[in-house]
């Protein structure tokens, strides 16, 4: 049985793999920042006075959560140009990832907002803070602290799912793997190495979030 594993190609491929990993990290960094900002807005909209806003956010959340990310990506990248919206692959990837993640994190952020006791905002109002100050300075930090672990998991899930943006030729980690295995004919070894890198990335992101969360939001974040 003449198939031996061989990792000799790895030396020459290290640069490409590192480049791909950097792109994956870039994508998820953009997605995290944009996604969390959007989901704070949407979670607030979902609790607003305007029924139209509430309904619109609810529909968005349901549609995104009940369709595959890959289909959303293809719809945005291949489908939207028929409406005259033509996006660069990287931009399309970030848009798709952000919209996808925000649908999940909107629910999470909302749950966090609901978990802050009403007395907190009442106390803040009594001290004469304006509504916006109450939301940003009092409610949001406490809500973020409660939902931090769930948010971290969602970011990692999104990073793993971002492997499929290789399908629209964004040169991230999975796409570099596709190119490498086509060149070296070492498909199994290539995907094996890249899978391990994803595993390391997801562990690193979790560590980073826990450490960062402790610093910014204070103790008690796990």
């Amino acid at each position, binding site marked *: 049985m003449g198939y031996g594993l061989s990792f000799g190609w790895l030396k020459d491929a290290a640069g490409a793999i590192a480049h791909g990993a950097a792109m994956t990290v870039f994508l998820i960094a953009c997605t995290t920042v944009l996604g969390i900002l959007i989901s704070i807005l949407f979670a607030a909209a979902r609790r607003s006075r305007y029924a139209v806003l509430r309904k619109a956010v609810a529909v968005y959340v349901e549609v995104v959560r009940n369709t595959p990310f890959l289909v959303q990506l293809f*719809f945005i990248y291949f*489908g939207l140009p028929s409406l005259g919206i033509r996006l660069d692959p990287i931009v399309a990837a970030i848009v798709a990832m952000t919209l996808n993640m925000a649908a999940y994190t909107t629910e999470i952020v909302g749950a966090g907002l609901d978990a802050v006791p009403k007395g907190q905002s009442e106390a803040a109002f009594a001290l004469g803070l304006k509504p916006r100050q109450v939301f940003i300075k009092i409610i949001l930090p406490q809500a973020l602290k409660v939902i931090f672990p769930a948010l971290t998991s969602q970011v990692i899930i999104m990073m793993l799912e971002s492997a499929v943006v290789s399908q629209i030729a964004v040169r991230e980690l999975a796409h570099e793997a596709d190119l490498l295995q086509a060149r070296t004919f070492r*498909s*199994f070894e290539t995907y094996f190495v890249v*899978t391990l890198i994803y595993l390391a990335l997801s*562990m690193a992101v979790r560590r980073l979030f826990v450490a960062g969360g402790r610093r910014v939001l204070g103790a008690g974040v796990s």
Partner: protein
Amino acid sequence: MIEFTFWDILRNLIFATRWTALLSAVAFAGGAAVGLAILAARISERPWLRRFGSGYIALFQGTPLLMQLFLMFFGLPMLGFRIEPWTAAALGLTFYASAYLAEIWRGGVEALPRGQWDAGASLGLHRLQELRLVILPQAFAITRPAAVGFLVQLIKSTALTSIIGFEELLRTANAINNATFEPFTVYGLVAVIFFVLCYPLTQYARMLERRAPAH
């Protein structure tokens, strides 16, 4: 050149949906069977089995499904198996599902009060009997919303098997799109079909969650 009307596109997509549904069902059933074994390892009394269980779960939850599918697709032939997209897809999704289901059920097992085990033991039940007769039925019951929720995730995940060449809904859509150049309609319809498959299950999971007694 064959002309595709809207109805041709829709009909072809709906025909392809049965492969998506079949793959989801096979992966969920297979995942439940393998997941049960992983669960048994994860909550075993032997430390090395517990470590194996948690390592298995961490591995599958910490790597992209797409990479897992590629490893199946390219790895199994190296072991001498002749493999087709269908086998790679079904096996890949089975292992993926088993890790998630094992973790969901473990949550259920650990949510049960210690007294349930003690009561089982006091009735003279063997550990496996305790699991089968006392613990698992309750663990399954309280984790049903999560399991149904995961089924939705699994159905959506079958779209990835189009990349390794399994002819399910999305791959059929890609082929139709290449013939018709109507990506907006084609991918829009695919999204609608997935929504029709998933939304009722999501609602069902939500209903189960509402009905569940508070713990």
